[in-house]
């Protein structure tokens, strides 16, 4: 990976340029998109439902940002080998480079989106907390978890092209199970332990705690478990990938 970091950077830049090519706003979309989403949540939850709490709107926004980082990285990694098939069959570049550059691209997009958070908080009258600076760190376990699962799925996808569809359905289901539109504080405390078994839900809660500086509903062992699961999944994914990629490439 270190040997090919330059190539990873080139591929991330390529993804950025190609994604925002021909748009007026360009990279600004990474920031405008979360702003527009916030406006929608504000309209629905503050105006229509009369929820006066400005933090709630931002909590939803953070849920959406962290969850889309996870799901986009997972789906991009899943199809990564097949998408880059022609390149993979012509160059001796290690194939995981193409998958990792996708993860890097999504992480960069997440970071750019996070830039709008502080100004939005000020506009909505929420208190700024220094822990907000820790927010980008949440991207690390999130991407690790998505990459780990994605590395396994990418190999499976070369054998069975239904894999990407299944992953798509699972991530959509996960959207509702990971507390994007609700949080720990909206759940009956007796179900907290169960909810915290979902590492993505815990990662979203961690992001929210970074924003509010309030960690009362976040147990240290949940955080440790979520991070440990992410690292282990990444390790498992990498092992499966290294063992199976030679065979997978023959299916491209």
């Amino acid at each position, binding site marked *: 990976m270190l040997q090919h970091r330059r190539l990873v950077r080139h591929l991330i830049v390529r993804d950025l340029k190609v994604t925002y090519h021909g748009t007026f706003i360009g990279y600004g979309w990474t920031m405008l998109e979360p702003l527009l989403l916030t406006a929608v949540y504000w309209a629905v939850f503050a105006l229509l439902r009369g929820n006066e709490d400005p933090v709630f709107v931002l909590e939803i926004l953070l849920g959406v940002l962290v969850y889309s980082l996870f799901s986009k990285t997972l789906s991009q990694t899943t199809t990564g080998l097949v998408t880059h098939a*022609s*390149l993979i069959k012509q160059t001796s570049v290690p194939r995981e480079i193409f998958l990792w550059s996708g993860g890097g691209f999504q992480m960069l997009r997440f970071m750019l989106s996070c830039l709008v958070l502080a100004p939005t908080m000020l506009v909505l009258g929420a208190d700024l907390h220094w822990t907000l600076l820790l927010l980008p760190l949440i991207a690390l376990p999130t991407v690790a978890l998505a990459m780990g699962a994605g590395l396994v799925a990418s190999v499976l996808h070369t054998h069975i092209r239904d894999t990407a569809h299944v992953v798509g359905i699972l991530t959509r289901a996960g959207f509702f199970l990971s507390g994007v539109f609700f949080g720990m504080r909206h759940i009956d405390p007796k179900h907290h332990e169960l909810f915290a078994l979902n590492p993505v839900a815990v990662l979203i809660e961690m992001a929210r705690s970074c924003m509010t500086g309030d960690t009362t509903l976040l147990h240290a062992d949940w955080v440790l478990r979520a991070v440990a699961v992410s690292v282990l999944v990444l390790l498992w994914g990498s092992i499966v990938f290294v063992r199976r990629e030679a065979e997978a490439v023959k299916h491209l």
Partner: protein
Amino acid sequence: MIQFHGVTLDFPVKGGAPTYLKEQVTGRFRKDGNRRSFRALDSVDLAVERGQILGIVGPNGAGKSTILRLMAGIYRPDAGTIRTRGRCVLLAGIGTGFQGHLSGRENVRLNGSILGLTDREVLERMEDIIAFSELGEHIDQPIRTYSMGMKARLGFAVAAHLEPEVLLIDEVMAVGDSAFRRKCQARIREMVSGDTTVVIVSHNMGTVATFCDTAVCIHQGKVVAGPGEVQEAIDMYETLLSEEE
């Protein structure tokens, strides 16, 4: 230097998802039971010395391109060993990985990086590459506005400035108009004349006869002639073709 020793490679025959799942379940109990596969290469022995130019000929589907991909490390052999020494570059399907929305210049940077050049090396060679490709000011236009010939020219220009130790060429001699083709051939000749090890896969016997020091003929995944005299391999290839007819 490249050495193949008893190299065998099987390709899976696509049976779809149910077959794969069944294999995953039953395969654990009966390894290689009745797995359906196609033997692309069957215990191939080859050796190319440093600075030598090897031609690989054979009918369609014989396994020629597969040999190149094994040399480049794209496939791993199922049996046997492969040893290669030196930076290896495969020229096949010129311009793969070109990104339509990016400019020619940006694509040179990306392509060079994929093919193993450092940023500095790309920068140093950029002007030469642009000059070689004869694209002039088009180089700053997005590649989607290029004709096929222009894309191929740019692809070859990048490839021609790689200076690899091992060069693997898969049927890329026919690029652009006849003037540019001559230029490509001259450039290949230049690259080949140094101490670069070269392997050429071609259906053009003229190319093989002019460039190569030694040649092999491959048929149905097996070496049927050579490595040895170029003419011997070409004769074998022609015999095979006439038999097929």
